């Protein structure tokens, strides 16, 4: 009898929840968000989600979308693994009926979602964080985009920073063992060696371990001038910095975007003073990041030192632009509109100027979107053509130093 009961309860639960989501469905425009709220990347997912919510708020506060409808965001959790991510994406598409999705973060989830759900379903997918080169070459019929630049750009800038500005001849790299770390590492090694430098060690680390002392020891072996660290704050980056300092393995560092966070200096300000890092940023003249910071802090309090909050804001915003342009929520129409609406020589729209954007679209104008992460422009492959900035630690804070336009 018990099995019957469980069965019945299960089925009721499933259908009640299915139908509730149906009943409350008003006349809204839906965009799905597919981010990890649990599992390995949970600490990024939460804030990424805030980025999308902020975009939603701006759009709805300024009269909504497609003639006054509300923008609705439907979120599912990828649990940072492809099985649940793919399932979640399919729920978004089939059950919630979205035709555009922001997500996922790691390429290991984004790619299978694209291949098995969104591309065949003709749904537009914009990843705010997946940097894998595979996304560039994916056979996606143009349905996959990203608002984060691919790794190679930043790698070149970081390597040039090391050899030209900082005059390092010997560099050790420690990178997180995933596609993000791997990609940056490869690009950095190539460029640094081209510049005539020597990479003394290039070591991958497993994320989320408690001790990286042996990796650090190996990296420090041939007395390199500095450590170039490719990591996120929470998956081991901070641990590596602290253990490097504590044990005196390194006193000079170069960081990449995943570590562009005041958090890394907490408690170790005096040791990191004057260190440099790189990160995708806005073009000279744009002030998207500043506006974004203000808006975010008004809404959610202090902006956390995490990457991809801005890029997920941008992903949501440009999707809204494309929907407005297309005049419908049809996936194919959104895809085509994304290519048409954005242009480098278009009229400037800031991230809090949704009304202006709508007017421009109505007037048939193209838009130069000065996004939260910098201007968003897609190339043929759906990749973002951003700029890379150099940042610096000054008085324990992170300040932008210069912008390298590529």
């Amino acid at each position: 009898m018990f099995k019957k009961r469980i069965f019945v309860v299960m089925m009721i639960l499933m259908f009640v929840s299915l139908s509730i989501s149906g009943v409350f469905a008003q006349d809204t425009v839906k965009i799905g968000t597919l981010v990890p709220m649990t599992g390995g990347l949970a600490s990024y997912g939460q804030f990424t989600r805030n980025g999308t919510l902020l975009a939603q708020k701006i759009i709805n506060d300024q009269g909504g979308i497609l003639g006054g409808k509300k923008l609705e965001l439907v979120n599912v959790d990828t649990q940072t693994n492809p099985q649940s991510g793919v399932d979640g994406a399919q729920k978004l598409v089939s059950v919630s009926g979205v035709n555009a999705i922001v997500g996922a973060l790691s390429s290991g989830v984004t790619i299978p979602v694209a291949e098995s759900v969104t591309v065949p379903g003709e749904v537009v997918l914009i990843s705010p964080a997946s940097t894998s080169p595979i996304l560039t070459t994916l056979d996606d019929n143009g349905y996959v985009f990203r608002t984060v630049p691919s790794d190679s750009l930043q790698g070149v800038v970081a390597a040039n920073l090391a050899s030209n500005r900082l005059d390092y001849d010997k560099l050790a790299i420690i990178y997180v063992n995933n596609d993000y770390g791997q990609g940056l590492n490869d690009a950095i090694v190539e460029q640094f060696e081209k510049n005539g430098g020597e990479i003394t060690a290039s070591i991958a680390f497993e994320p989320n371990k408690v001790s990286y002392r042996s990796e650090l020891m190996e990296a420090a072996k041939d007395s390199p001038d500095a450590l170039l660290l490719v990591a996120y704050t929470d998956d081991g980056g901070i641990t590596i910095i602290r253990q490097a300092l504590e044990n005196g393995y390194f006193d000079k560092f170069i960081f990449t975007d995943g570590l562009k966070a005041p958090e890394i200096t907490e408690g170790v300000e005096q040791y990191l003073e004057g260190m440099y890092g790189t990160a995708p940023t806005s073009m000279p003249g744009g002030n998207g990041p500043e506006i974004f910071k203000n808006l975010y802090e008004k809404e959610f309090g202090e902006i956390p030192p995490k990457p991809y909050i801005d890029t997920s804001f941008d992903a949501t915003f440009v999707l809204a632009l494309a929907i407005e342009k297309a005049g419908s929520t049809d996936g194919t129409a959104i895809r085509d509109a994304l290519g048409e609406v954005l242009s480098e020589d278009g009229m400037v729209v800031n991230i809090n100027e949704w009304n202006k954007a709508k007017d421009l679209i109505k007037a048939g104008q193209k838009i130069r979107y000065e996004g939260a992460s910098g201007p968003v422009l897609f190339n043929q492959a759906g990749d973002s053509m951003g700029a890379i900035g150099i940042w610096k630690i000054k008085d324990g804070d992170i300040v932008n130093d210069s912008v390298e336009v590529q």
Partner: protein
Amino acid sequence: MTLGGIFSYLVFFLIFTGIYAVMTLALNMQRGFAGLFNIGIAGFWAVGSYTSAIMTTPPSAEHLGGYNLPFVLGLLAAGLVAALLAFLIGIPTIKLREDYLGIATIGIAEIIRLVIKNEEWLSNGVRGIAGIPKPMAGFLGHNYNIFFLLIVVLIIAIFFYLSEKGINSPWGRVLRAIREEEEVVKAAGKNVVRYRMEAFVLGAFMMGVGGALYAHFTSFISPEAFKPMQATFLVWIMLIIGGSANNFGSLVGALLTWGIWTGTEFLTGMLPAAYTTQASALRVILIGVFLEIILLSRPQGLFGEKKYSASSSKS
């Protein structure tokens, strides 16, 4: 939300359930019938996925192969390589106490994951293998998932049939007798280790095929897919919930568990956006609680052990 949407999600849901059901049937062969404690399913899954990917993708500089072989050969190769792996693992470990075998297999599964993560020549490392062909995808267009579901159902049917057939054969009876009274079977002059090994290898073959199905369905695999929670323990939960040593129970266990796993999302999705993080953690807690309730109230699983034909074969 449309009826069509629900239907297409249902198809999708059943495909995933089906892939997990293949794993559960395979585990039932090893655990339910032969009493083998394999908690390294992720390893066989990964080996199956990667084998089929390497076999069926076009030649690539990024990983071993590809050999551009047809889908069916990919499935077969996936099963065979996984079976071979099981054989090699089994030689030293199959005679160990059951929990030792378990710990050995989980260790090996983690080592396999590290290898595919770090050996780029073989598996393209952390970047994974993309573009794994979907059979007949070119012809079928929008209704592709229905076709894939048919493939999955077909494979489940084959495995189910063979598994039932096998377990009712003299071979299966010896197997069950070993699980019940190993000493008696040994005394009857049967080579216990050989029977166990056969069940282990057969189960691994099925896991390999299941892994291949997963690879072809998602079209992309990377080491992230083969972590112990989703690839091993979830399958165990399915088996235990359905009832060990019962093929039908395995299928229902897969359906119900995956239903809970994904269905709880609809529940927590109703919480306001500000609580998304809490909702997601809450959801996993809910899954855990569901599992414990079922274990406590029906430790033998929903269906319990099926009574198969007379249990001993005195030959």
